[in-house]
Every structure is written in C-alpha cells, then in structure tokens.
C-alpha cells in the first residue's frame, strides 16, 4: 500500500499498568439493576409469607368472640378441605369452570373474526367501532335484571352475563392487536401476489395471533371476576352460590375458601394460556441466553 498504512502494533505500551480500581460493595437497592432469578423467586415467596404472617397476627389480635369474622389461614384451608371432601364442592367448581370457559370461548368465537374484519376493512370498522366502544362503558352487572326477565334464573342467563362482560373489551383489545401488525408484512405479501383472503387469514391473523392470545389471557381474568357477580343472583350451584349461602350463615371461613379457590383457578387459567401460547407459537418464543 506504498506505506499508506503503517502497522504500529509493535509499539511498546508506556503507561504503567494500574491496579484495578476497588469497587464499592454490591447493594441490593441499586437503581435499575436486575436481581438474579433465584433472588427474585425468593423475594416472591417472602411476599406470600409476609402476607400470611400479617393475616395470622390480625387473627390473633381479633377478640375471641369475633375471631369467626377473621379466621386464620389454617382455618380457611381446613374449611376448603371440608368443602371438597364432604360438601360436593368439586361439583360447584366444575359448574363455575364450565360457565367461564363456555361463555369465554363463545365471546372469542365472535370477537376474533369481528375484530379481524374491523382491522382489515375500514368500512366495517367505521360501522361497528363507535357502537362497540360505547358498549364497553355499560356495566355488565346492569344487564342482570334484563337477563333475568329474558332467560329466568337459568344457566343461559349466567352465560349471557359472562359473555356480555368480556365481549366488548375483547373486540377492542383484539382490534388493537390486529392493527398493530407491521404494515410491511402485508405489503410484502401484496407484492408477492397474495389475494385479500390470503392476507387476512394467512398474514394478518397469523402475525397477530400471539398478541390475541395475550389479550384472551388478560380478558379471561376479567371473566373470573364477573363469575361471582353472575352466581350471586339466582344461582343454586357454582362457587359464587356457595359463597353467598355461607354469607347468610356468617361462615367467613367458607367465603374466604371460595375467594382462595377463584384465585387458584385464575392462576391456573393464566398458566394454561401461557402454555398454550408457548406450544402454539414456537416461532414467538423469547430467545434465552
């Protein structure tokens, strides 16, 4: 290279090699520093333990005559055990689970195609979106009298209430998922000669599906919160009905056992959706390491 590039790698380093600087001791509460996985899990468990201790202390602090209004965690668990082994509680749990899943999947079966069409075709969106956005502000519980008149104290009434509780939010969330699909994916398919149908089903839906699954996971949690409302009024079976009956006899341990059951089932549902997402969309797994 006519000496234009001179290799200077052989030149000696003249600066003295300094000792590595002493760093201050690691501090758990440094800003924006992540904690290790095990530390994180440990802290999570600690949160639960702290809650149970506060609960137990609250129970001890309550005067004996009113301790039944704040049973201890152990009493609640034993109430749950009695419910399960002697009161046919599993049947009620099954009824509640059936109501949640049937109404929720019916709502999905309507809202997914609807939101997909709204997201892909501006006229459909313009036609339906104001109506659906407004409907979101209607409190689901306000439909109870109407549904009782229409369907009576039946399962249909409860399914309809749970359906109405989630459908409008589902449409709004899934519409958002559909509209978030990267426009270039659609344009790339267009330039390859894909037809409208192939783009709506084969590109937009495929691209949005993990996000749709997340929306479903979040909305079924809301479905669980409507369950008790649905089963408080005119219900003979289901977790909510068991809790209402216990309330009439001031059996707070059973009410709390009901709350605990719904909490556990909610967590399990969440895990179920996450697992489904993991196996349905292997292409969307977060890279680890």
């Amino acid at each position, binding site marked *: 290279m006519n000496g234009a590039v001179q290799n200077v790698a052989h030149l000696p380093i003249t600066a003295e090699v300094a000792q590595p600087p002493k760093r201050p001791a690691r501090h758990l509460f440094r800003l924006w520093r992540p904690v290790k996985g095990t530390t994180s899990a440990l802290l999570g468990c600690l949160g639960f333990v702290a809650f149970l201790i506060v609960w137990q202390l609250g129970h001890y602090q309550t005067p004996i005559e009113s301790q039944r209004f704040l049973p201890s965690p152990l009493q609640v668990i034993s109430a749950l055990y009695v419910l399960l082994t002697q009161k046919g509680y599993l049947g009620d749990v099954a009824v509640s689970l059936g109501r949640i899943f049937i109404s929720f999947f019916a709502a999905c079966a309507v809202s997914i195609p609807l939101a997909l069409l709204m997201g892909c075709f501006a006229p459909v969106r313009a036609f339906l979106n104001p109506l659906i956005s407004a409907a979101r502000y209607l409190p689901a519980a306000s439909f109870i009298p109407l549904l009782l008149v229409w369907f009576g104290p039946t399962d249909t009434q409860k399914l309809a209430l749970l359906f109405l509780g989630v459908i409008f939010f589902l449409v709004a969330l899934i519409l958002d998922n559909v509209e978030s699909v990267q426009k270039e*994916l659609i*344009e*790339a398919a267009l330039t*390859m*000669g894909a037809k409208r149908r192939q783009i709506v089903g084969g590109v937009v839906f495929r691209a949005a599906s993990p996000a749709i699954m997340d929306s479903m996971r979040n909305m079924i949690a809301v479905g669980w919160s409507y369950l008790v409302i649905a089963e408080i009024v005119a219900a003979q079976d289901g977790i909510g009905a068991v809790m209402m009956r216990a309330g009439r006899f001031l059996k707070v341990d059973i009410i709390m056992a009901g709350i605990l059951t719904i909490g556990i089932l909610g967590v399990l549902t969440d895990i179920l959706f996450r697992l489904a997402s993991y196996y349905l969309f292997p*292409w*969307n*797994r977060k890279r680890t390491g």
Partner: protein
Amino acid sequence: MTAAAHALAQHAVTEEAVIEAAGVTKQYNGGKFTAVDNVSLVFPKGQVTAFVGPSGCGKTTMLRMVAGLEDPTSGMISAYGAPVLGPGPDRGMIFQAYTSFPWLTALQNVEYGMKLLGIPDGERRSRALKLLDEVHLRDFANHYPSELSGGMKQRVAIARTLAQNPKVLLMDEPFGALDAQVRWEMQEMMIDIFEQERKTVIAVTHDIQEAIYLADRIVFFTCNPGRIKKDILLEFKQGKRFGRKEDMLLLPGYVETERQLFAWMREEIKKQ
C-alpha cells in the same frame, strides 16, 4: 462529464424497456404536498438503477408507485407496455423493515411466494434450498426469523423475493437497518445475485458509496417538489460489476464520481 453520461443514458434507453414512467406526479393531502413532480424515467432490461438524494425527496414514493403499492395522482407507469394497476409478483420488492414472516421458518418463507404462484411441492422445495444456498443460509433452513440476526432475516426476504423469479427487483433501503460490516457483506452478495439472475433493479438508498458500488446508473432526486436533478451512467465502471468492493476504489473516475455526488447532496441539503 455529466453531458457524456447523459449521452450514454440515451443510448441505453434504446434497449428493451422494462419499466416506463411517463409524467408521474404524486400528491398528498388533496394537492397540498407534492412528493413526486412530473417524473419520467425509462428502465432498460438488466440495468441496476439507484435512486439517490436527501430524505423526503420522493425516492421511496416513486419506488412504491412502480411496485403498485401506491397510485400516481397523474401520469402513468407501465411494466412491459402494460399499465401498473397494483402490486404483483413480476415486480419483487425488498423492504427496509424485516418482512420475513416470523411464523414461518426460513425455508417456508422462501417457499411462500412460490406457493402463491402454484409451483408444485418438489420443485418448490429444491428451488428454495438452492436460493437459501445463494444467500448463505442453507444451514438455517429450519430456523425461525426470531432465531436469526437482522442481516439473516433480510437475506431470507431477498431469497423469498428471488424465488418468485420477478423480472424487476425493487429495493427500498434494504440494508438501511444493518450495521456497517453486514451491510458490506450484503452489498457484495447482491452483486453476485445481480450477475447470476440478470435482473432489472431499482434500489433506493441514502448511502452514496452503496449506490456507486451497486448501480450501473444513478438517478439523483431533488426536493420540494421531488424531481430528477441528475440522471447519470457510472461510466467509470466500464459496464463492469465488482465482486469485491475494494477493487472498485482504485478505478480512475471513482473518486470524482463520489465527490460529485457528495457535492450534489450538499447543494440539496443547503436548499432546505
């Protein structure tokens, strides 16, 4: 130099024209903003053209109109004498954003466009594998895009486009999101592909060196409204393309060309 370049450009036009744009104008907001103003261009078969110019000068809009993703407000674009009415697989497009479908493996991505064309299974598979070879991704055939680097994702998109055997290859800043080393590797790979496939290519780029290296001809855009400032053939390359970028740098005329393009760019930026 510019006069001579124009004479050569005129000569090239007499060959078979693949894409013709006649008086193309694109306006937005009901005529308030003119992105492309009365542009006429002819793209001869086998020529690699780069659209160069400052941002917002209608380069990408012009390319998208050739692709059929946008309609001209007035004027006409035709491909092989027939008017362009929409996008189609005869004009393959490569985008700056990664467009390999994340739910398909690299191999399935490359097969996607061929599936749309109705190419039978066996032929599709073997052609897809051959193309993955060409873009150096044979070992990653069964990987999803989420497992690939940015440059690899872009190579999947390139192979997918080539798989449909488009007569025209449109590239909208295809390497804009890549780091310098990957960009350079991709440019050299594109030269190999241009040589093998003999495509008519239109590429939009901000990168002056990239334009000089890849293109046979540079169309320089000017802003507000988007018009053609200069249209030159890179005659210093004597019709050659170089597999190794550094082989081009010592050619007489290279430095002058690059200097000229930087001067035009500076003129345009000063005007803003």
